[in-house]
């Protein structure tokens, strides 16, 4: 990372003020303390990535030892004609966008409530945050067996008086199940971020607004929301980065099924790599995912950023 930032940074600096280039030796002396970190980053990220690219050009299946050979771009052609891969892309988008939006909306609401002075606020906060602290695999098992099980599950038990009977939630509403579990898990994260934003808000301004006769909703819309903008952005960005990799919940609860309804990219790559043992094809998928994620993340970030700045700050 450090290298690429420094290669791009100089032109920007030059446009702003007259460049005073330090002598070469001095520059290297300054960079010296950074080198161990740089080497470490290269070793743990760049080298494995290059290896992955190399693997993706091979026909390499662990189940057939001794048949590894170079095939060029054939793996890439295979995955783009693979219907499950396309399904997995759609599911990945669904399982990222829906939980992020839901958790940020619910998270903001909860944060607004927690920001008030209520009795037992400390205990409440701890309770609200707890889903985030439970290990994802353990949480998935609790959802699968304790809550959603068609025979012994609590949800069916609670809904029984309302005429809901023995619904097999996980298989009849598989996508909704995954979205719910992810939202449940990530809402506390959003609460934390938004709450930090709310607590950094100046009380003076809020009081002034009240004196001016602004109602609660008006204050929220015109003052609180613009103030929260960077926090919401951060929440959406971090949330997307982590949720796009959702694996535990899918692996534990639905195993990608029924059919391919809940197979997202991480899970499909896992299946190709560790069930079909097709390392070449799995690597090609990994490379495609990295490139696509970077492109989409860049564009989405710009879009989100410009939307917020048009609406919020300047009004």
């Amino acid at each position, binding site marked *: *990372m450090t*290298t*690429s*930032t420094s*290669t*791009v*940074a100089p032109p*920007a600096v030059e446009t702003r003020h007259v460049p005073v280039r330090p002598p070469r030796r001095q520059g290297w002396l300054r960079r010296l303390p950074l080198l161990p970190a740089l080497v470490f980053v290269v070793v743990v*990220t*760049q080298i*494995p*990535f*290059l290896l*992955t690219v190399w*693997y993706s050009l091979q026909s390499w299946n*662990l*189940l*057939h*030892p001794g048949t590894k050979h170079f095939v060029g771009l054939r793996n890439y052609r295979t995955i783009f004609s693979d219907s*499950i891969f396309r399904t997995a892309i759609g599911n990945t988008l669904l399982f990222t966008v829906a939980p992020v939006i839901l958790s940020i909306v619910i998270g903001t609401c909860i944060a607004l409530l927690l920001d008030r002075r209520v009795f037992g606020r400390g205990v409440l906060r701890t309770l609200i945050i707890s889903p985030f602290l439970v290990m994802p695999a353990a949480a998935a098992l609790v959802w699968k067996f304790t809550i959603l*099980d*068609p*025979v012994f599950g609590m949800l069916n038990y609670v809904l029984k008086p309302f005429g809901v009977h*023995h619904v*097999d939630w*996980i*298989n*009849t509403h*598989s996508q909704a199940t995954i979205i719910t579990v992810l939202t449940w898990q990530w809402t506390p994260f959003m609460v934390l971020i938004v709450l930090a934003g709310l607590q950094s808000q100046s009380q003076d301004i809020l009081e002034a607004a009240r004196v001016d006769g602004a109602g609660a909703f008006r204050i929220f819309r015109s003052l609180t929301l613009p103030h929260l903008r960077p926090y919401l952005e*951060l929440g959406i*960005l*971090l949330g997307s*980065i*982590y949720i*796009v*990799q959702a694996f535990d919940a899918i692996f534990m609860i639905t*195993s990608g*099924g*029924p*059919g391919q*309804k809940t197979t997202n990219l*991480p899970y499909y790559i896992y299946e190709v*790599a*560790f*069930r079909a*043992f*097709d390392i070449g094809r*799995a690597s090609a*998928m*990994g*490379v495609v*995912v*990295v*490139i696509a*994620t*970077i492109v989409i*993340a*860049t564009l989405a*970030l710009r879009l989100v*950023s410009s939307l917020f700045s048009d609406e919020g700050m300047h009004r």
Partner: protein
Amino acid sequence: MNVGSTAVAVMSNRYRRRRLTVSVIAAGAVVTLALSACSSSKSSSGSSTGSSGSTTIKVAVVDNPLMTTIEKLTASGFSASHPNVKVKFVTLDENTLRDQVTKDVAAGGGQFDVVMIGPNDIPTWSKNGWIKDLTSYASDPNYDVNDIIKPIRDALSSSGKLYAVPFYGESSFLMYRKDLLQAAGQTMPANPTWQQVADIAKKLNNPSKGVSGICLRGKTGWGENLAALDTVVNTFGGQWFNMSWDPQLTSPAFQEAVTFYVNLIHDAGETGAANDGFNECLNNMEQGKSAMWYDATVAASTLDAPPSPIAGKLGFAPAPVVKTSASGWLWAWALSIEGSSKHADAAWQFMNWATSKDYIKYDAQKNGWAAVPPGTRVSTYQSPEYQKAAGDFAALTLKSIQSVDVNHPGVDPQPYSGIQYVGIPEFADLGTKVSQEMTAAIAGQESVSSALSKSQGYAQQVAQSYK
């Protein structure tokens, strides 16, 4: 990655400093995503020789009841007499175990010394040198290898060499609650057909009391729902591939069999069948939530022995048939030594103990004769104590195992070996994909015909390399 970091760097340059950190994390995260999926873990050998001269071996087993017993008995039964060998168990569910173990042997990871595998793995794994030849170890007269039931021994051998020793062996049969059948005025024929079983199941089905007519596997996994379903397919006259390796998943017989299975679950099966595998159905039976269960013969050892609440209430019938005379599957959970293991001798000491006649006697002492691992040794079936304790299912288990034909289980000849699986290395992936479709059909999320036509497509891709 260069593309990525530059893109992110350009971005961070444009926006404020706060974003830089975020973008760094972003780039890092996407790369980790790709790599965590691609790189196979080359963890250092799990086994090691301790300074005191003792050897630690790592054993990977499936989380079925009999295997949990062995874990409990190891401390007193094995470690006491073999102080120099320390055994560490890794217990995983069936699907995860297969993925983990295959990854480990194929990549030569050496994470485990002793692994639990099935007959389907033997031909390829022995050819690839992933597991060690046990013939010379097993020739020890005290071990008495010829006492192992022949179809099981054959299934674990390749070109005359033994590659694994069975911890338990099984076929499949029908278990039913005698008391419930009697109360409903039904009798189970000596050799039931699937149609007869379906009729009885519908009569016994009583959702208002929370009792289903039959429990059938619906859980995704080729060793889960496909195991049961494939035996139904075989006896309906269907098969996966014909002699010229053309996939037959959309043939009328295959279609009829799957439709029958799915309809039987919908009409008289357990609630949430799409989640149920062996352990879930076992639980259902123990809780009295199902009246019949078609599954592995080994289940009887747990169900019909104390402390099971329904012990003594069970009747047993051969696997139901349609067009064939027998339809049970053949399976063994067997122990073998990884090719890359450095502790083969210590590993064999453990395997020898775990699959010996003495283990069976020891287990009987601790847990009663009915609960010992079945389907491995003829001597178990000759033991009067076992016949007395397990009389209801012992003879039928042995007969079921002996009546299988691994190379020709269905009506038409097949170019592969295997009853409830196709004996090719790609089947783990193909079978799982097809079983996902079957789960969707069982859950009512997809029609049988569309599930099968998708499955046919997956099978076509695999068949290409065999034509």
